[in-house]
């Protein structure tokens, strides 16, 4: 399974990421998720979220998740981009692509990746007023 992990302070350019998709002839499904900063956090209006990370451990923990995904589903490739630093409301902080033969495994692996990330990957957020 190919995988690409990017932690970046820059904006996530979704159209460019989509345009760079690589998919072999056996693949029939690509699932994408964009996680976007909402305008409120626990009923408080916010302007942005600041993301901080323990970067080396982020890499390690994502790779442990990739290993689990590879064992469970026939995924051809995974790309994930997570922003660090200040991300304004309405901008994506997380972008994810899963390429697989069929939609079932692509949806399952994508949701598993996000669920596990939220449990184990050391990234934290701080809402900014």
């Amino acid at each position, binding site marked *: 399974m190919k995988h690409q992990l990017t932690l970046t302070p820059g904006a996530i350019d979704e159209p460019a990421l989509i345009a760079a998709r690589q998919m072999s002839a056996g693949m029939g499904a690509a699932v994408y998720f964009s*996680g976007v900063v909402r305008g409120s956090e626990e009923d408080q209006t916010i302007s942005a979220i600041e*993301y*901080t*990370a*323990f970067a*080396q*451990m982020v*890499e*390690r*923990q994502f790779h442990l998740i990739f290993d689990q995904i590879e064992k469970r589903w026939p995924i051809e490739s995974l790309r994930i981009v*997570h922003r660090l630093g200040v991300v304004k409301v309405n901008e994506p*902080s*997380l972008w994810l692509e899963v390429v697989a033969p069929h939609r079932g495994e692509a949806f399952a692996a994508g949701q598993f990746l*996000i669920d596990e*990330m*939220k*449990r*184990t*990957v*050391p*990234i*934290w*957020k*701080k809402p900014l007023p």
Partner: protein
Amino acid sequence: MTIRVQFWSYFKDLTGCADLTEELPEGSTVHDLLKRLHAHHPKLAAMQNSTLIAVGVDYQGRSHVLRDGDEVSLFPPVQGG
């Protein structure tokens, strides 16, 4: 032995510290280190049920035996995405 400790996210604010060094006897565990840290940082002690612990880049439990030079990270629940 010497253990380096790093705090992440708001644990830095709770302790007023980003990182520190502790000298511990050989054979000490994560639990022993936490006891030492909690004595100096009562606000950290209050968070112990929601404290995550890594040695290097892997999660470890309280009974994990530390080795000289280990880097231990303490942080609150993660919130990526």
